[in-house]
């Protein structure tokens, strides 16, 4: 298997340069989706002085730092949005990726989310690649130029899935189905109080999977299925015979995740699905 061979060979195992180049295009799309969705519904005004986010930052970091972050917010989110387009289009891809990475870490200051960390790490994996390509031209070369970058991104995706499984299995709240039931029905309960429409949970789903004890038992099946799929997908992606199934199931799984909290998760789901390309040498 190329993944294990590559570490044994000190990352001199040849891989197709095109994998990381396709991945670069898609990770740019993921970042563009995340950054543009963050601007929806008054996102441009989010860090205004006197607003809640500024107040929360002030409590955590002090007035001077909160003021500094507020003052730099708009330039940073504008630059990172443009840089994400440049990553996709292959315009100075390494510099653009660095700008995107800076924008993602900047976001972590005022909104710490694990899905942002994952996307940031995927973007960081582009930096050591030997050939990120230019524009939309995809190389047909097979070399070790991108092997380490490809290995790191795959390693992080495997860790994302398997560590997620480890932590979920040890959480009685998740394993019982209670967490999923609370999230969906809690969100549905406050839906009409939200200033903007953030999600749509089909009525049939809410009825079939309610938050009664019987409904929670059904949610438990969803939780257990998630565990099994998250465990199996990384292995199946390495096996050519079952890879198409793994990709299809991964798309369904990440679409389901994205439906839970669309604006927050869509970029993450695209980034995770983009990483599937890298499981092929």
């Amino acid at each position, binding site marked *: 298997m190329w993944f294990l061979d590559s570490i044994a060979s000190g*990352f001199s195992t040849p891989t197709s340069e095109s994998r990381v180049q396709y991945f670069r295009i898609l990770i740019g799309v993921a970042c563009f989706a995340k950054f543009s969705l963050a601007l*929806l519904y008054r996102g441009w005004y989010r860090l205004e002085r006197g607003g809640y986010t500024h*107040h929360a930052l002030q409590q955590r970091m002090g007035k001077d730092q909160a003021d500094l972050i507020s003052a730099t917010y708009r330039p940073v989110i504008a630059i990172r949005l443009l840089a994400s387009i440049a990553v996709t289009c292959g315009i100075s891809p390494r510099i653009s990726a660095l700008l995107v990475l800076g924008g993602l870490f900047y976001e972590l200051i005022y909104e710490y989310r694990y*899905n942002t960390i994952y996307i940031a790490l995927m973007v960081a994996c582009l930096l050591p690649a030997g050939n990120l390509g230019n524009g939309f031209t995809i190389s047909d070369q097979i070399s070790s130029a991108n092997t380490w970058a490809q290995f790191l991104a795959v390693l992080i995706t495997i860790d994302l899935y398997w*560590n*997620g499984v480890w932590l979920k299995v040890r959480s009685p709240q*998740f394993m019982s189905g209670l967490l999923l039931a609370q999230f969906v029905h809690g969100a549905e*309960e406050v839906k009409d109080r939200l200033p903007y429409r953030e999600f749509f949970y089909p009525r049939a789903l809410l009825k079939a999977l309610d938050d009664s004890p019987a409904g929670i038992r059904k949610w438990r099946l969803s939780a257990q299925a998630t565990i099994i799929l998250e465990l199996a997908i990384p292995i199946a992606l390495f096996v050519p015979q079952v890879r198409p199934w793994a990709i299809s199931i991964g798309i369904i799984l990440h679409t389901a995740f994205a439906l839970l909290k669309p604006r927050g998760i869509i970029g993450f789901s695209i980034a995770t699905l983009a990483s599937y390309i890298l499981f092929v040498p």
Partner: protein
Amino acid sequence: MTRADLISAAQVSVTVLVLLRMIWVGFLRESGKILSWPMFTIGCSVIVNLKAGDDEATENVNVFDFLPSGEFAISPSELQLVVDYIAIERGQVNGTGRMLWEGGEKPIIVEDSHVVS
């Protein structure tokens, strides 16, 4: 030793460090730091009805009008932060609600701008 050997050695070293960190923070410490992934593993959120104002002139306030858009699952600590903010903007905050946590549900009270569970 060639330049290629040095680069290869550096790549292997960084990879081993990354792997060790993954194991340490993800599987041994469960710290929630970078390279551990506790998404959707434990959740604690609140659903509250709040009133704000001074003395008799109080009005209902919608907590989501103050939060950034996209936030709809608020933890008790986030609730305290937003209550502090509403208290500055609108005056003293009081209210009741429920906390959804790993033990199920329990009542939550906001009294004199303090979240009491």
